């Protein structure tokens, strides 16, 4: 007789009393899915800071973060496709969406957001595209000409309209980005059988961690991209991004802290198993990596005076690792507590691919998937350059002067 392993049996180790059908069903893909959508939302919010709130010092990263957000957005569905046992059936989401299900709205939310981001990119780059379409010959010229969508109007009036539209799109994009990720939080927060997930705070917790990861992702990628090109990086820009990071870090710490304190204080039936999870089994991942290294240490590093480029880079890297660990702790940790409240399930990711299933569930596809947005960004950068010196040293100095003046007035 042919042996069939249960889906999940390969990577789940059970202890104590767990139900016979209980396995870790949501694995590494579902860890990466909220991580990527979080980066999308955070990067977009950062680009809107310039367009909507007129933070001039963020001008050098406004285009970059928008295109980066798009590159990430393109990859946001792929972890889900890897996760489905019937990926080819995913078209059913569009054919027969069942809107009582939180997941069913995904197509709508995703495509709406995609439309906003694409439109904003087009309007932001329109003058550049037209300029290139007129200049470039051959294949590149053809691409640029196609990208103009037949509009070659660069009159002052047209540009002013563009500017207005960009502001509107960026403004509409903020709630859309917040919704995209808050909605991912809702998908988890509404699973009533998993005590670690079931909290109305979940959408907000996810949103805050999304923004910090997105901003941190932009800091890291921008510094890397500019350094590789040997371009000048304006310190005022990086410091301004770090300021955003600090504010949202504080919000994330407060929200995630309240969540744990609340669980501990109300100490419901599940608290004994949850405290074992948080303070013993996941203590290193959760307390050391997620909290100390991922949130508290970068907050201290960013708040210390005379922030250097290197310190900003390290802090942002720490935040990126911390948020990834947070996604892991939430997704895997939530399922680690048996729904019988009498046992634990340990997730052992299959490292060596021995079959199609272990390959898909292993580290190779997911690593490729996490690197893809960077590759996409590299390709997009060839057509729509984002790693350019928007500010030269003089502009940068001028902006810094303005900022310190403002600070001076404020004090």
């Amino acid at each position, binding site marked *: 007789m042919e042996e069939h392993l*249960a*889906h999940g049996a390969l990577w789940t180790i059970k202890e104590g009393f767990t139900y016979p059908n209980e396995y870790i069903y949501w694995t590494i893909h579902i860890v990466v899915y909220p991580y990527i959508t979080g980066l999308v939302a955070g990067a977009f919010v950062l680009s809107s800071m310039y367009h909507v709130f007129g933070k001039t010092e963020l001008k050098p990263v406004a285009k970059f973060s928008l295109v980066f957000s798009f590159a990430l957005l393109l990859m946001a569905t792929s972890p889900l496709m890897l*996760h489905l046992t019937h990926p080819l059936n995913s078209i059913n989401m569009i054919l027969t969406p069942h809107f009582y299900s939180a997941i069913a709205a995904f197509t709508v939310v995703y495509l709406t957001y995609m439309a906003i981001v694409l439109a904003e990119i087009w309007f932001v780059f329109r003058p550049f595209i037209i300029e290139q379409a007129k200049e470039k010959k051959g294949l590149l010229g053809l691409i640029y000409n196609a990208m103009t969508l037949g509009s070659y109007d660069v009159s002052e009036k047209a540009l002013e309209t563009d500017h207005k539209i960009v502001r509107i799109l960026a403004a509409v994009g903020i709630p859309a980005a917040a919704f995209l990720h808050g909605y991912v939080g809702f998908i988890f927060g509404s699973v009533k059988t998993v005590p670690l997930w079931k909290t109305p705070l979940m959408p907000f917790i996810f949103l805050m961690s999304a923004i910090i990861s997105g901003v941190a992702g932009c800091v890291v990628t921008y510094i890397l991209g500019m350094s590789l090109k040997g371009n000048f990086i304006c310190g005022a820009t990086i410091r301004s991004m770090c300021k955003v990071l600090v504010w949202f870090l504080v919000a994330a710490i407060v929200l995630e802290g309240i969540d744990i304190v609340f669980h501990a204080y109300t100490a419901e039936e599940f608290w004994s198993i949850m405290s074992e999870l948080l303070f013993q089994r996941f203590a290193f991942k959760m307390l050391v990596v997620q909290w100390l290294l991922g949130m508290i240490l970068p907050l201290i590093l960013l708040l210390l005076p005379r922030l250097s480029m290197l310190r900003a880079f390290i802090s942002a890297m720490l935040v990126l690792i911390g948020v990834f660990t947070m996604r892991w702790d939430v997704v895997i940790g939530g399922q680690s507590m048996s729904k019988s409240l009498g046992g634990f399930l340990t997730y052992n990711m299959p490292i060596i691919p021995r079959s199609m299933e272990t390959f898909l569930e292993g580290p190779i596809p997911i690593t490729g998937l996490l690197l893809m947005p960077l590759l996409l960004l590299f390709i997009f950068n060839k057509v729509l350059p984002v790693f350019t010196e928007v500010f030269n040293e003089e502009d940068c100095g001028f902006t810094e002067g303005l900022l310190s003046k403002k600070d001076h007035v404020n004090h």
Partner: protein
Amino acid sequence: MSLSRRELLKMGFLAVCGAVIPLSALQILTPEAAASLIRPYSEKKRWAFVVDTTKCVGCGMCVKACKLENEIPFNTDVQRTWVERYVQLKDGDVLIDSPQGARHGFTKNDPQGKEVNEAEIAKGFFVPKLCNQCEKPSCVQVCPVGATYKTDDGVVLVDKNWCIGCGYCINNCPYLARFFNPITNSADKCTFCYHRITKGMNTACMDACAFGARKIGMLNDPASELAKIISTERVSVLKPEYGNEPQVFYIGLDSIVR
């Protein structure tokens, strides 16, 4: 023709109102509503199940029968029905297990792999589990494509060809009644042997039980033994706090049952 803004709004409003009327007719004429005109609600069928835990001896024949009947690979550790063993010791410790869903039966004194001195045992019993065919099934609520649905007579089924395999239903079932079928790779669960009960037969697990611990029947049928038990005896359900309104009723549950 020129159209003022006021006229456009007026005509638009009328068009929307006009469209709503025929659409609302569809709402009135749902198949269920039409059927209820002919057949009053009290006669509506509703399958339910009774498990008498006081009669279960943990032989596991029901699990075996279910696996064979529903073609769930026998050696795979997923099952549509299973039996749990509860042993409470005199010092208050509770040992619970269900090795391989008890498809080989409980044949040894080894709860959770430990041999327990019989003198230390305060009480022990078995609890068979299966899908609760909830009145408000969270699995049906969360299925993004509508691949899982509740039939008119109350049984929750899965369309294995439409399932996308996201596992949202599995994570949302408080009873862990769901799993991925290792052959179809779709979500799977107990159907109360829908293919049998709709032909007047019993479920496979019920036929396999030599002790009468399992009973299927119609809730609204005064002639059924099940309806009589539920209406006259003290029965309870598992995890009512989730609000799913489970329709598997238990005799002899204990507070240590998870």
